Every structure is written in structure tokens, then in C-alpha cells.
């Protein structure tokens, strides 16, 4: 489904993305954020408790075959994607919270993703030959932590290089998705036509339901509307390219096709759903700001 060259390129691009993600903050920013960790903890909860559960429920409700279940669960368990920061910015959300959640969830993912995959994989009855070896996931994530940490240190030591790398990293996040569209879609358009509605429902549903539940979990735990919108986008937007990379590194090419279907489709469709949701959130944020201004005038 993906050629060897494409897999290598994807790996290199992921390294650059992670370097850029790390470079979005310094080690001290990280320590400061954990002095008031409530927002981040709420985010982690929706990222690693709500999303995997939603993935599992969707798999059961839609009655997907095991190979597709693995892809869906993997997407559901992934940490936040770096493009979420761009969407958080455009939705007038809390950019700092979004950046912090993406990084923290990537760090926590080393432990959480293998655990969640074995748990929900077992629950969904995924056969051993198509389940992802937990060690592999952990390995990929640990390898990606190295550029993340280098990025953080770089930002501290040389902000000029650090901030440039951050920019290149977020640019690369968009490039990866374009890369998938340009190289993968033309070769597989027949597959896209043959794909059944339940698969599209799973692909689009996981992102949208993540955003919906992410929002209400955050609201329920006392976050304000603006922070809840940020957590919502962060929850729904997963690191799709990372899931693609994990699969290509874990399975022989012949086995990859079905496993990759949902992660690849997710990476394509999440751009569209996030854009729509971002526009809607942006309108709400503007309306709330106007209402606050009106209230201000009323009090004087």
C-alpha cells in the first residue's frame, strides 16, 4: 500500500514534526505547566480514556472486521497530532494548552498506547496475527521522543533555530497529509470507491465523536468554554501519520493494506472535519467575546 521509499520518507517527516513539536517549548515551560496541571489532566483523560473507548464502541457498533478494528483502535489510542495546534489557533482557542497537551500526550503515549491497545484489542477479540506488538509501538514512540527532547533543548539554547524548527515542523505536518493525498489517493481511488459506508462512518465518526465528547468531558470537569473547545479539538485530532508509520513498521507489506485503510482515511478526513468544527468554534468564540463586551458596557 505504501512503498518502501514512502515509508522511509514518512519516518523522516515524523522525525522533523516531532523535532518541531519539541521546539515549541522549553523544558522550563513544561515544568511551569505542571504547576497547574488541571487542564492538562482533563485533556489526558479525554485523550486516553474517552477516545479509546469511543473507538472500541464504534468498532463494535459498526461490526468491523478485525483488521479494520486494529486500525480504528490504533487511531483512537494515538496521542494528539501537531496540526491540532494550528486548528486551536484559528478557532481562537488556548494555543498554549493545545501545544502542551500535544507534547504531554506524546510523552504519556509511550506507556499508554501499548496498554490500551492490548486491553481493547483483547476485548474486541482481535486475532494475534493482526494485533500490533506492544513493544513495537513503544519502540517507535521512544525513538520519536528523542527529536522531541532535542527540540525542547534547542528552543532553550538557540531560540532563533528553535522557533524556525517549530515552524518547519508544523509546516511538515501539513506536507505529510498532502503527501498522502498526492501519492496514495490516485493509486487507490478504486479502493476508495469500493470502501463501504460503515468504514467511512468509523473514519469520520471517531474524529467527530472525539471532539463532541472531549468538549463535554472538559465542560463537566469545570473547564471554561474556550478551554473546552481547545481540549475538544485536541481530543478529536489524533496523530494519524504516526499510526500509519507504526503499522508500516510492524507488518509485512502484504498485510498492511486493510490495517492501513482507516488510519490513512482518517488522516485525510480529519482535515475536513476539523476545518468545519474550527469555523464553528471560531464563530462561537467571537460571539462570546462580543457578549462579554456588551456585558462590560452594561455594568458601567
Amino acid at each position, binding site marked *: 500500500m505504501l512503498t518502501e521509499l514512502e515509508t522511509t520518507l514518512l519516518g523522516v517527516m515524523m522525525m522533523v514534526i516531532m523535532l518541531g513539536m519539541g521546539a515549541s517549548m522549553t523544558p*522550563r515551560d513544561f515544568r511551569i505547566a505542571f504547576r497547574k496541571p488541571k487542564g492538562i489532566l482533563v485533556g489526558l483523560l479525554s485523550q486516553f480514556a474517552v477516545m479509546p473507548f469511543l473507538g472500541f464502541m464504534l468498532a463494535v457498533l459498526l461490526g468491523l472486521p478485525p483488521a479494520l478494528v486494529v486500525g480504528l483502535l490504533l487511531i483512537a489510542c494515538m496521542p494528539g497530532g501537531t496540526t491540532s495546534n494550528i486548528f486551536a489557533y484559528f478557532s481562537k482557542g488556548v494555543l498554549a494548552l493545545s501545544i502542551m497537551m500535544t507534547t504531554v500526550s506524546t510523552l504519556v503515549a509511550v506507556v499508554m498506547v501499548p496498554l490500551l491497545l492490548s486491553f481493547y484489542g483483547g476485548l474486541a477479540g482481535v486475532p494475534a496475527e493482526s494485533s500490533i506488538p506492544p513493544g513495537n509501538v513503544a519502540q517507535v514512540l521512544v525513538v520519536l521522543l528523542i527529536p522531541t527532547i532535542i527540540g525542547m533543548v534547542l*528552543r*532553550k539554547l538557540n531560540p532563533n533555530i528553535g*522557533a524556525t524548527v517549530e515552524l518547519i515542523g508544523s509546516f511538515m505536518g501539513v506536507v505529510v497529509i498532502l503527501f498522502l493525498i498526492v501519492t496514495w489517493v490516485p493509486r487507490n481511488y478504486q479502493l476508495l470507491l469500493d470502501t463501504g459506508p460503515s468504514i467511512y462512518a468509523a473514519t469520520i465518526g471517531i474524529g467527530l465523536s472525539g471532539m463532541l465528547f472531549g468538549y463535554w468531558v472538559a465542560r463537566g470537569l469545570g473547564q471554561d468554554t474556550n478551554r473546552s473547545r481547545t481540549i475538544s479539538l485536541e481530543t478529536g485530532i489524533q496523530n494519524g501519520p504516526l499510526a500509519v508509520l507504526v503499522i508500516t513498521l510492524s507488518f509485512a507489506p502484504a498485510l498492511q493494506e486493510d490495517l492501513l485503510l482507516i488510519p490513512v482515511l482518517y488522516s485525510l478526513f480529519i482535515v475536513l472535519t476539523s476545518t468545519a468544527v474550527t469555523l464553528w468554534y471560531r464563530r462561537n468564540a467571537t460571539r462570546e467575546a462580543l457578549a462579554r463586551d456588551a456585558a462590560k458596557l452594561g455594568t*458601567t
Partner: protein
Amino acid sequence: MVKDSGNKPWFAAYGNEIPTRLPDPAHRSLAALIARTCEKHATSRAFTCVVPNGMNGTLTFGQVGEMSDAFAAYLRHHCGVGPGARVAVQLPNGLAYPVVAFGVFKSGGVLVNTNPLYTRPEMIHQFNDSGAEVLVISDMFADKLADVVPRTGIRHVVLAGIPEFFPRIPETVVRGVQKLWTRSLPPIPKLDVPVQRIRQVLKIGRGLPRVTDRDAIGPDDLALLQYTGGTTGVAKGAMLTHGNILANLEQVKAMGGRHMTGQDCVLTALPLYHIFAFTANLMTFFDLGARNILVPSPRPVQNIQRALENYPVTWVTGVNTLFNGLMNEEWFAAYPPKHLKAAIAGGTALHGAVAERWQEVTGTRVAEGYGLTETAPLVSFNPLDQPVRAGSIGVPVPGTDVALVDDNADPVDPGKPGELLVKGPQVMRGYWNRPDETAKTLQNGWVFTGDVAVMDADGFLTIVDRKKDMVLVSGFNVYPNEVEDCLSLMHTVLEAAVIGVPDKGTGEAVRAYVVQNPDVEGTVTREDVIAHCRQHLAPYKVPKSVIIRDELPKSPIGKILRKDLKAEVRAEFAEKV
């Protein structure tokens, strides 16, 4: 007529460190000082500009010297700007500022500092009033040029950006972000006069002969037209000479003593177009061979984070709201700057609660000073080796005489409040083209400050308030500062302002405006505020009305503007009539 004070009780506070006689400046002009300093410290870093994401650019003393020479040559030979001609500079803090300002001095021109946030009518007024011939303006405000320039005598426009003189890649990134992301770079309009970027202009200047008649500039020549609004009327230009600034520089250095050295690194978050940062940061620390860390905009205060984290800052200059804002930031309170020696406060009254917290958080003191645009600016400062005197603006600096007088300009009894008058080598020549205003403010070399102060037996001054801001409640004087200071003790209050409003019963009544501290649980209520004031203040000083606001009107350096609140009140009462 006010007489010079015979004995100077404040000399005792000088101790062995501070000279009672001000040393003569080592140079005849700022141009000479700048040229000498750039040569002496050529390879050291003079200015580093840090944008909010941490990207930065640096100029050494040698580079600043070379570039300001080129700018001076451009002004003199290309624009035909002779000695005494006015050059308006409308730039936020950045590497272009020192290059341009120093170039103006080297060309013999007069620098007209202009607030970058001025509106079109304000710009037109200031450029016409000063007779500016050249304008150096931030490219972020180029959209104002088409309306402004044709209505003034400006013949050349030079544009400079925030990331000007950064290394190539960071410059491109910051400019790209400004253009595409924040959309803060308007297109450059077509004008009848030439509009060029500073890099082009320096290129032109480098090809021209250097300005060589620098020694002709003397201490009595005009260096700055520093516009000040005062509390009423339109802005007027205080005429500050090379001698005024040079004297004030010596006065700052005398008060700083061994605590200020060429190894220092000063945070410059206050705007350089304001006289406080201009003299204290740009000129004094530069003269010492120290490094300035320039922050283009300190609002939101988060913008300062990378500057404080990434450089070994030893001094901070600021105003009450800046110190307060910093301490309310988690990153600052959790990791206060490690190398800090002290902070200098000025511009507006420093609240006791803020000074105390600063000491707690940073382990260093805030030394409060007092100054005016008209006095270039420093008048008094707290000696750094003396224990902190809460609320005092310190003692007059060497070479300065002060007097406290009543409404008839007669000296008040010792310990009693009176209007503060100042005399010294830093006092301006008067207001540009405004003999009547000059006559009101400047009499026999004394500046009437409009501030009411008291002096204790040791010569330490305390500002009671602005004469004009005093509230008269049933014949009792209430000084808003005292009430504001009391309000700032409430932990639920972020900041406060107090003014007088017309009142049928008492003539005037005290009104407080407070802003809720967002970092504190619980909301501030009207009842809390009044109950708190009743505990600390005499009944007539307790606010009769309390208004809770999201923010207070502020000047560019962060002074809370009571006059704007008063204007609102005037409008409010006009409606009722």
C-alpha cells in the same frame, strides 16, 4: 521668588558612595559620547532585541557605531538635514531605534520621539508643531502615511521593522509571521516624497562622506523635543539639550554607583520613545558599556518571558503596572530572574504592596525614583545602600535642588505637603514655541512639577499626589494615591484607580475603579472594597462608589490614566444634567 535651599538635609543619605557635587560630563555632546563608547566597547554586545517567541537579533557597540554613522551621513548629505533640524522617530523598541536615534545626534539633528500608537491627527499635530523634516516610522504603521505625510513638512520617510537587523532567517520568519499570520504589515503607500527601508538608507549613507563637524555640537544645543501631554491641553515639546541628557546620565550613574557596571544586562521593556527608558536604559547603560535587552511590546506581559529567561538580566526598569503584571505571571513568580540586582521604578507611584511582593518574589529591591519629561527625567532616587523607605521617591540626585511651596509659591513648613519645585542641570530650556506655557512651568530655573510632596528630616521625599488629582470631600483633602495604595492591599484586586466625582452633599466624592485579579479565587465585590477601606482609612477617604472593571485606561508605558476616567465621569454627569 523661590530661593535655593541653603542646607541640603539629603546629603547625609548620600553616605560615602554618592558625590555631593555632580561630576562634569566627560563629553560635550551625546554624539561625542556615542562615538567614544562605540569605539571603546566595539566588540561587546550593545543591544539585543527579543520578540515574544524568543527569536532575536543583536548589534555590537561597533556595529551600532558604524550604522549610526551611515544614518547620520544619509541625513546630512542625502536629505540635507542640517544642525538643529528635527527628525521624527516613531518606532517601538528594536535594533533600529538606537541606530536611528544615535544617527540623528551624530548629524546634529534634533530627535522628536513619537509614540508609535499615535492616531493620524496626533501625528500631524506633532510633526507640524516640531517642524519635522524626516520621519522614521515602523513598517507596521505605514498605512497612516498617506493621510499624514502630505499634511506635514516631512520630505523623507524611512521604514524600519520589528525584526530589523536580525540574522536573515529569523528576520524572514518574523516578517512572514507578521505578514501572513498576524497580518500586521500593511502595504506601503505611494507618496510624493521618497519612502525607503532602513537597509537601503544605510547603504546610501555608507557611500557618502562621514559627518565630520561633530565637535561643533555643544551642551547647549538641542538634542530632543520630548512631547508631553501633561494632564491637560495638547502635547507640547519639552526642549532637552545635549547638556541636559549628559547631566542626567551622570546623575543616574552617581546614584547607581558601584551597582551599575559595564557587565550589566538591563531589560528594556518600557518604550525608548519615553524619556524614562530613553535616559536610563538607552543612554546610561549604553554609556557604561552594558547590554540592553529590548522588548518591542511588553503587552501582554507574557511577551517579556523569553527575554527574561534567555538572558542574564541584572537590572529591570519598569512602572508599577509592569512589576505587578510580572508577579502575576506564573513563569515569573516560579522562576524569578537569577542574576537580578535591583529594579528601578518610575513613571507613576509604586504601590507599597507591589514593592513588598517584588522583594519577596525576586529577593531584590525596587528602588523608586521620580522624574519628569521636563527634567530629562531623573529628579530623585532612593540610594541603593540605604534601607528601603516604603513609599518614598528618595532624595534629590546630585546637582539638583528642590523646594516645596504653597499656592503663593512660598515655602511650606518642614514636614508639610507642598508643590515640588526642581532646579538643576537636567532642567529643560522650555517648551518648543510655547513661551506662555514655559512661563507657567519654568520660573527662574525652577520647574513647577504640579506634584504635591512632603520631605522628612533626612531629606527623603514622598509624593502625596498630583495637585490636580486631589479630591476635596467636604473640605478635606483626599489623595487618590493613598486610597489606591490601600486598595492594592486586597488580594482580589489586580489594580485600582481613584478619582473624585461631583457630589451634591460633599462637593466631591471618592470613586474607586477596581479590576478583579484573575489568578485569585473568589470575586471582588463593592461591599468588600468598602469594608476593607473602612478598616484602613479615615471615613472621608473611603470610596463612596466602587466600579468593577475588566481593565483600566493606561498610557503607553502603563500608567493608569485617571484623566480618561475623569473624562468618562464628566460625560456621565453631563448626561444627567
